[in-house]
Structures are given as C-alpha cells and as structure tokens.
C-alpha cells in the first residue's frame, strides 16, 4: 500500500504542475473565427450539430483575437491578406496555437501563382497541418485531437 493509495482516499492527488496546466489548456481552447474560404464552410459544419466540436471544449468561436487561444487558418491566404493574418496572430495573447486547415493553408494547394501565399507557415508558425480540399469535419476534429496531444507534452518554459 503506497502513499498514493492512502492519499487518494483522503481526496488528495499528486501530479506534476506541468501536466495539470497542459490538461486545463486543452480543456477549453477557444478558436478565433478565422474562416477565409471554402474550408470555413467545413469548419462551420464541424461546429454545427452533426459533428459537434463543443465536445472538445470549443463551445464558442470568439471574434476578438484578444480572447482566443487557437487560430484555425481555414482557407487560402492571398498576398493582400497576409499582413492582416500576421497582425491578428500578434494580437493574440500567449499561449497560442495555430492549425493550418486545408491544402491551401498548408502548402498553397491547387493554386501555385502570384496571388496566393504558398503555405501560411510563411506568415505564422504552425503547429498542426490538416490535409484535404476541404478536409472533412472529422479530419478537422482529428487535427484538434492531435493538437491536444501535442499540448499535453509541452514544457512550461516554452511559454515563459
């Protein structure tokens, strides 16, 4: 009979601070409304009744960057829009994560020309890439779960 079993009966759990903080960060990660093009419609479908994203803590989508943690770049980023994306990213408070949803945000997609930025990682640092044109809502939820797994393994000093 170890210390953990005895303490558990009295309502005390021992763990590391890092694990608790990472777990709470994944519990209610609020995405910022940043749908640009076709992938935004699949993101809206993922938020609606059939593939409910509020099961994963993303109950609402905040319009203001100051109140959100996660930026899902859904859609193609044109050259005119790139500085706007960077400014919105800078306005988000830390800790913040970015999911590049869709082919256009990951690598430029079908469009390899003068007007589209070839991958939004030229503009903001990306944590998870979700492939598809547009990715199914289930693929987006898979990307979100992957991000949660990544956040669980983060170190506190990354965000210090």
């Amino acid at each position, binding site marked *: 009979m170890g210390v953990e079993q005895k303490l558990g009966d009295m309502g005390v759990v021992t763990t590391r601070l890092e694990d608790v903080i990472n777990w709470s960060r994944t519990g209610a990660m609020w995405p910022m409304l940043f749908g640009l093009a076709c992938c935004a419609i699949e993101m809206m479908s993922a938020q609606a009744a059939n593939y409910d994203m509020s099961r994963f803590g993303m109950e609402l989508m905040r319009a203001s960057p100051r109140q959100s943690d996660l930026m899902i770049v859904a859609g193609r980023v044109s050259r005119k829009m790139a500085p706007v994306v960077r400014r919105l990213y800078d306005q988000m408070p830390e800790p913040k994560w970015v999911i590049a949803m869709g082919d256009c945000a990951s690598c430029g997609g079908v469009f390899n020309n003068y*007007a589209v930025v070839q991958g939004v990682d030229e503009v903001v640092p990306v944590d998870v890439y979700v492939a598809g044109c547009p990715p199914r809502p289930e693929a987006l939820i898979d990307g979100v779960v992957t991000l949660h797994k990544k956040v669980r393994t983060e170190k506190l000093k990354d965000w210090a």
Partner: protein
Amino acid sequence: MSASNYQTLVEKFKGTVIDFAGEQTFVVSPDDYLASVEFIHSELGFEMLATLTAIDYGVQAEPRYHLFLRFNSIAGHDTFNLRVPVSGHNPKIHSIDKIYRNANWHEREVYDLFGVHFEESSDLRRIMMPFDWKGHPLRKDYPLGYEEPQFTFNFDEIEGHKPYAVRREE
C-alpha cells in the same frame, strides 16, 4: 440575339459582325464606343450590363486588347455582345459608368489586371491587388508566379530559401 439590332448598329456605326457558335458579336471602333453604348441603352432598350472584361492578345498584336461587353434586355427577352479593340500603346478608353452604374467595378478590375485606363470614370483604383502593387497581373507578359514544389530530390535546396515565420518578430 436578334439580327435586326445588329443590322441597325452596322448601318449607324460602321462596325463588323462576327458569327460563332450560333451567336453574333458586334465589333465597333473605340471612337464610336460611347455613342454606341448610349444607343444600345436608350434606343435598343438593353437595361442591364452583364459583364465588361478584356482580353490580351500579346505584346506583338495590334490592337493589343479587346474589350468584351454583354448586355441583357429583360423586356425584349434579348442579349447583345459587343467588342471594342483598344491599342496597346497607352491604352485608354472612355468610361461608361454614367450609363450603366455597375460598370464601375468591372472597369476597376480591368484597370487593375490589364492596365487599361478609363477616362472620366467616377472612381478608378485598384480593386483586387493591394494598392501599392506594381504591374498588371493578367497581361500575357506578366509571369504566373509559379513556385517550385519541394520534393525529396530538391528538399534542401528549397529549404534554404523558403521563408518560415517565427513566433515573435523582434
């Protein structure tokens, strides 16, 4: 689509008619452009301008650009095509946004992407590209901007010059 409309225009404005795939197009010179559009609006009764766009035939061709217009008449159940050649040296033509109000944004798009200047337009600025963009993208001598895809055989080469963003820009 009715032949009599094209006939009246040919007599009045000395243009030609092209016949292709079951539809006719009237070609008019740039000097008669404004007068013929006024005639189409007031006399022939075409109330709606469907589209105004341009085609670039290359640096060598003369005239370099053709403007293409399409009109709809709801009351007369009819459509009408118009083509206007515009020369490539200092391309400019009169604007028709006093007659058809929606021509304004179409002309702005043609100015932005081709460089054709519209005189006496109520508002001529760039619409699709950023305001300080240099060049007119849809011209034939403007490059597509194709970026080489990164495969395994050229992975390191492209990794060297592809810009990646950092979290905090100092």
